[in-house]
Structures are given as C-alpha cells and as structure tokens.
C-alpha cells in the first residue's frame, strides 16, 4: 500500500517538481532529441544547455576525449543565443509539457543580468540555473565560480532582476579549495538553490601527435570518475547550509548513484554524461531511484535528503 502514499516530489526554492530526477545542462541539448527515448514530462525537469546572449559557434574539434570511466568535453558553449532559444526551444518544451529549468551563462556580470531580464516574463519556466563556470572577460578571464567577488556580483545582478519571480539555482565549480565557502557567499547574495557540481578541468595529451588532444586544449571532466568528488561537495555544502536545496550531479548513471547524492544532501539529481552512452538513462535512473527509496522504507524523497548526516549510532550503554 506504500506505493500510493509514497511522495516522489521535490522542491528547489519555490519550484515544485513531481519527480527528483532532471537532465543536466549541456547533456540534453534542448530536450527534443531525448524525447525520442522517453516522455519529457515524466521526469522532474529538463535543464537546458547554458544559453548566452549571442549565437556562439564554440570551440574547434576535437571536442571530446574518453577517459577512464569518464570523458573530457570542450564545447565552448556553442548555442543559438537567447533570442533564438526563447523563440524556438522553450515554446517546444512547454508544448510538450516538460518542466523547464533554463541555464544561462555570460561573459560579464552585466550579461547575466540582461539574460535574467529576458527570462522574467517567459511563461513555462520553473527556475533559472546560473552557470558561473565561465571565464569573466572583465577580470582576466578568471572563472566566475572560482572567484568569490565575481560569483557574488553575478548572483547579485541576477537576483536584482529575478528575485521573487523565479528560483535562482547557482551552479558551482568543484575546482575551488573550499566549496562550502563559495556556496555561502552565493546564498548570501540571493541564490535560492545550488547545483553541484560542474565538470572538473582536465587535459589529455595525444601521445602520437604529442600535443593536447582537444581543440580547446583543456576540457571538463565528467562521468562516473567524478562521482565521489560530487558526493563530497554535496555532503560538505549540505553540512554547512542544511536548509539550502541542492541539485546534485556528477557521474550519476544508476538509481543507486542518485540515492547516494540524496543521502549526501541533494533535493534533486541531474543525469548528464550517462545520457551519452544511454539515451534512456534519465528515466531509468528515476525509476530505479523510486524503487530504491521505497525499498529502504522512505515515505518521501524529503525524508532521505541528507540522511547520511544523521548522528551515527553510538556504542550501546550498559
């Protein structure tokens, strides 16, 4: 009888989702391609590929290298620009009853503000993901997410435009010394939720040509290889900020992996690179997670969030 009362829904800030499994930004394009493999309205939400102000061609090929239990990608945020994205991609997702989290990326603090303004009155968007793992053109190309001042400035700029309209989810980079400290800064600046983690910066050198393999030289490492890093980051941030919802991601490919992130403190879980090898991965992870949560005796997703932080049972007293 538990099935009928089991609550699989979750929330990220003020946004409610019927299920806690999402696509990961940059791993589902704008959703259309994956809809051949499962109905998009059956998952928590589609998190779209980070969109910028203008059309962007991205980096030269080769753009990927497979690594042990992972891969490097170096796409360079290829995309149609916000105008074409809002004209074509979002309406299509809304027509297909998908819940939509729009991911935005900018080259300057102002660009993030402009992008946020463009989203404010668009119907059908559940939340905004702010991808701050981009180089800040105004600050020697230093990545926003790795510089507390820039990270704060971006969130300030987005919050001033969006506060109250749409939940703001800020996606953090694991390439920092103290991720909980950065998390606290962006939450103080107005983030409603956090997305953890983005890819880790890596490189592969081709030993035949003896040059870096990727056209962009460096790339983002993703896949099961980075899952323990993601679990650690989620655990640390949840410990420091237990009331802030976390969208967990990084190498999830089974329901067990998603469950692990929820135990660490995630309110929802995104499936990214796993979709490349298995286009049905998102729905499979979601189904496995639901079964697993119920088999462990949880009545809701909420009950399991951060469960790994509960006090350990001490030695029984005599």
């Amino acid at each position, binding site marked *: 009888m538990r099935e009928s009362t089991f609550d699989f829904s979750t929330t990220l800030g003020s946004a409610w989702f019927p299920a806690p499994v999402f696509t990961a930004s940059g*791993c589902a394009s704008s959703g259309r391609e994956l809809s051949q493999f499962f109905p998009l309205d059956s998952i928590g939400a589609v998190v779209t*590929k980070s969109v910028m102000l203008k059309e962007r*061609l991205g980096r030269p090929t080769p*753009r990927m290298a*497979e690594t042990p239990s992972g891969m490097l990608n170096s796409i360079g945020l290829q995309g149609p620009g916000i105008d074409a994205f809002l004209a074509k991609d979002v309406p299509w997702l809304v027509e297909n009853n998908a819940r939509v989290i729009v991911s935005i990326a900018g080259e300057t603090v102002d660009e993030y503000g402009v992008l946020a303004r463009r989203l404010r009155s668009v119907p059908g968007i559940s939340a905004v993901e702010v991808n701050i793992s981009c180089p800040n053109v105004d600050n020697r190309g230093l990545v926003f997410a790795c510089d507390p001042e820039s990270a704060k400035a971006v969130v300030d700029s987005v919050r001033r435009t969006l506060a109250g309209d749409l939940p703001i989810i800020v996606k953090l980079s694991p390439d920092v010394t103290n991720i909980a400290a950065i998390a606290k800064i962006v939450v103080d600046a107005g983030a409603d939720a956090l997305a953890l983690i983005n890819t880790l910066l890596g490189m592969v050198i081709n030993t035949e040509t003896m040059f870096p393999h990727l056209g962009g030289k460096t790339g983002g490492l993703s896949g099961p290889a980075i899952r323990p890093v993601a679990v650690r980051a989620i655990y640390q941030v949840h410990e420091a900020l237990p009331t802030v919802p976390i969208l967990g991601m990084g190498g999830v490919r089974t329901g067990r992996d998603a469950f692990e992130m929820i135990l660490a403190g995630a309110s929802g879980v995104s499936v990214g690179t796993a979709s490349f090898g298995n*286009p049905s991965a998102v729905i499979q992870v979601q189904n496995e997670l639901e079964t697993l949560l119920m088999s462990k005796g949880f009545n809701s997703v909420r009950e399991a969030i951060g469960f790994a932080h509960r006090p350990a049972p001490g030695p029984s007293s005599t």
Partner: protein
Amino acid sequence: MGQYHQLLINVGEVVRHCKPGNFVAISVGGENSSLILRRAFAISRVSDRGEYGGTMELIVAPHGSGSRWLCAQEVGNSLDIIAPLGTPFGIPTAPVQALLVGGGYGSAPLFGLAEVLKSRGCRVDMILGASTVAKIYAPIEGKRSVNSLKIFTEDGSTGQMGKVTDLIPGLIADGQVDVIYSCGPMGMLSAISRITQGTDVVHQCAVEEAMACGVGICMTCVLPVRKEDGTISMLRSCIDGPVMDGALVAWELVGKNGMTP
C-alpha cells in the same frame, strides 16, 4: 579480412529502416566497463532474408579498446545497439552516373549504396584507396554491384600506386560523373570537395568526426557548414550528417579557432 573484422548482427525488423549512410552506436566493454561511451560504426549492408531474419553487417577496425572488445565477441552474444542513426546518402530519383570513393574501411557503406544505386538504374563506378593493401576493404561479392572498380595504394602494394583523388579530375572532365559519394578520412573528403568545386558534380560525403552520443545531445561531433547567407553553422555530424553536401562544408575551418557566426 585484411586488417578489418566483419560483424553480422541480427537486428530483426530494424533493417527495414536502415539506409546506406546510416550508422549505429554500440555499447562496448560490458556492464562494469570503464568505457562509458558508445562506439559509432557505419552500416555496411543489411539483409532482410537471413536465416534469422534481418541482419546488418559492420566492418570494424580493431584499433581501440572498444572496437577490440567488439571484435572479440563470440557468435551468439547480445549487443546493446541503437540503430539506425544519422542522415543517409541521398538517392537520385532518375538514373545518374555515380562515382563512389572510399578510403580505408570507409568503403564499407559504399557497397550497400552501390546495390541501391544499381537497382535504380545508375551507372556505378568505384575507386578505393588506402595506405597499403591490408587496409583496403573490397569484398569479392561487393565487386558485382559496381560497373568498375579501381584500387589505389600509397605504397603500391596493390592496384595503382597513388591516391584515389588522382583519377577524379579526368573522369569529371570526360563527363563520366554526375554525383560523387564518398566515405573516408576527412583529408580525402576535403580533397574531393576541392576537385568538385566549380563543377556541376554533386558531392555527398559521409564525414567521420569523434562523437560521444550519436543522438544529437553532446555537441562534440560538429562541423563548420556554410549557410545560404554565407555565415557558418556548427552542425552535428550525427544528426545533420554523417552524409553532408561536400560543397557546403567549410573544410578550411575544421579544427580551427577564431570562427564567428
């Protein structure tokens, strides 16, 4: 078969949807493998008349750990396969003079294409090339589906010494070619595009770019392609290709920095 393995896969009804130029994406390494991405292979030929129903043939060069795993599979093993994928070769509605050009095992999908073109009344000439004889893929039964077959190797170990592109300008000048269908390394495809530039010959090429997903979501397999207004789009070779119009690919920009839309 030379340096290549021939794989026959029973895929049932799927063969009805497979066209020359389509490809498949196969999981490799087994359940606990550290190889997380599928491997893409061009479909060489399909048959719906086998003992076990529909079968598809792939030609695989066991160079990497994934393709070696695939070639080591025993008869009867099951594979996790997504098929068919990609945009296939365009087939002319009226008979034309078709020249099929293959480099290395890039010739694999050309034999299935040759059968289709022949059945449409086309004249089909084929030129295959590789660095050396062991890298030529030319099955005996495939030769029946073409009107002529010429082979080039760079070391002269079989056929003529030279490159596939040596012969093409002359054939075009003689008016013996309406459409070129090509499949092979990017250098060969771009060389053919240079030859057809300024002629009336249509060049349909099946490109080869490293891809992670094969279904259009990863954006790794892109190629710079000219739009009508002359600006560049980065198109996915998995969805907008692998067969592309060679005249529209901006070959000089492949793998180059500093592109603007």
